[in-house]
């Protein structure tokens, strides 16, 4: 188990490095940064000045090693747009996104697990059908549109919740629902499949034969085994949500990491964009690592992979 964890850790670290290389290359090769920063109307001399000022005239490889060398010390340089360092900007915004992602995941899990359990126990009943419908509809709606519809319904129509911003906890409800709905279907389906699997197994039959109450069988024996893969998937989903929160944050004007990235993209503030892409990737890698370890702890066969 320990060697498995160690191997995974190594893979995770090298994936981080690769993501860093790719995001650096992508931004430096898909256009001329100096022209983008100086603006389309500026003269060639101005572009040259920008190039020198931001150190973009140095060889690509030097730029990369300098950037990476500081990045491992969590120093992503200075923003092109603000006077602050990138880390200051990120530090200000990261808590908002983490809070959004955390609440969204919590909501998704709270809905997905009971629904998945019920769907498995009452297979092919109306609960099962309803949960399938909720999942299928959830996967079909574009998330920016679902987010706007929630505003129309709950903020404008019913006036229960604020439209946008992030000054109070009420501001996080709609964005978290909008973001969490996309993680919910897969969590629910996995809970259902896992429960069906477990409920059909021999040890559950034994537990039932011993005369244990149905509730005890379901919660104490079945759910306990079915839930670990669900938790592992939840970790991965959280990673996806942090990456996807840019859309939700822009709809609700939440000043999180996604919004920072989005604003920085439109301001050609590339040190910030690069840092955010890398930070989100690091979160994702860390969370999938947790998921892998969880699954491996449950199922020793996974460790040999």
């Amino acid at each position, binding site marked *: 188990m320990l060697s498995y964890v160690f191997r995974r850790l190594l893979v995770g670290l090298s994936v981080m490095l690769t993501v860093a290389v790719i995001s650096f290359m992508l*931004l430096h090769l898909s256009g001329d940064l100096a022209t983008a920063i100086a603006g389309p109307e500026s003269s060639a001399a101005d572009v040259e000045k920008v190039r020198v000022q931001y150190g973009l005239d140095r060889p690509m490889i030097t730029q990369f090693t300098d950037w990476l060398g500081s990045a491992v010390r969590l120093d992503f340089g200075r923003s092109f747009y603000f006077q602050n360092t990138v880390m200051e900007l990120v530090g200000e915004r990261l808590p908002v996104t983490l809070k959004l992602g955390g609440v969204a995941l919590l909501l998704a899990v709270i809905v997905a697990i009971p629904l998945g359990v019920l769907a498995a126990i009452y297979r092919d009943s109306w609960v099962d059908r309803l949960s399938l419908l909720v999942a299928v509809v959830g996967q079909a709606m574009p998330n920016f*549109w679902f987010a706007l519809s929630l505003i129309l319904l709950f903020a404008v129509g019913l006036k229960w919740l604020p439209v946008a911003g992030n000054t109070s906890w009420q501001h996080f409800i709609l964005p978290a629902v909008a973001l969490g709905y996309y993680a919910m279907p897969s969590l629910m389906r996995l809970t259902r499949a896992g429960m069906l699997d477990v409920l059909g197994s021999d040890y559950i039959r034994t537990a039932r034969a011993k005369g244990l109450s149905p509730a005890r069988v379901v919660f104490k024996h079945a759910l306990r085994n079915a839930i670990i893969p669900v938790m592992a998937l939840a970790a991965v989903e959280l990673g996806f949500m942090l990456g996807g929160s840019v859309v939700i944050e822009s709809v609700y004007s939440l000043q999180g990491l996604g919004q920072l990235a989005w604003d920085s993209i*439109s301001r050609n503030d590339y040190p910030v964009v690069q840092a955010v892409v890398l930070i989100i990737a690091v979160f994702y890698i860390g969370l999938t690592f947790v998921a892998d370890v969880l699954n491996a702890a449950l199922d020793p066969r996974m460790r040999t992979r």
Partner: protein
Amino acid sequence: MSSTSLSLPLPSVPAWRRGLRRSLGHRGLVIGSVILALIALAALFAPWLAPHDPYAQEVTQRLIPPAWYAKGSWEHLLGTDKLGRDYLSRLLFGARVSLFIGLATALISGLIGTTMGVLAGYYGGRVDAVVSYIVTTRLAMPVVLVALATASLVGGSLKVVIVLLGVLLWDRFAIVTRSATQQLRDAEFIAAAKSLGASTPYILLRELLPNLMSALTVVATLEMAHAILLEATLSFLGLGVQPPTPSWGLMVAEGKAYMFFQPWVIVIPGVVLAVLVLGINLVGDGLRDVSAPDGRN
């Protein structure tokens, strides 16, 4: 798999008819196919079906509500947008954009992902390790952010969206074809082809690939739905398809400023988008159920 298991003698109807019968018995597949067919027809015949020119602006006819509203008119069945363009006509032409992007992206990503998955599954060992590593890396990159950042530098357009999504969405193709190939690698028909002296490309393309087709179709439909949603997202954020091209995501973005007083401007394109994606997903899920071996679900 099925060759070794004991099964009831199959009825003597041809395989395609059995498949068709089973497909028609799958409610989700039927509903999904009907939705998809209707939207595909609407896209195909958009120039003949559209009551107006989707690009024609009419300053005096701005933001007319759909016909069922008191202020609506039958002239513009689904109303007009902020520039006075006919909403129904724009929706019909927008179907072309969505379907084209879905198909083109699925084609590019399918090509990339299948190549990687087949090679990894067939050769195993080091090739497999490299491909798995590339897939892991790809999954760690936040798709929306990377697409936005790149599109902003290159400049958003239909072509850019297709290439970007094609290059970003191949992971599921690779994962599915890899495990399917692993299962088939040691099958008897592959061994037979090898012993007859067939070349590796021949084995991969002519023997293996046809057997992956049903799995590939399922992934392709799901990836198509994924691409359509992402195009809408990019266009909504202003870095996808550029105006005045009618894209459903762009229509929601353009209507956003008016949604508080005229909710239908975002409701209509959003619902159509969701219905299309729902249709494609139903077809994908249905095909997966139907193509599963007999008696499995």
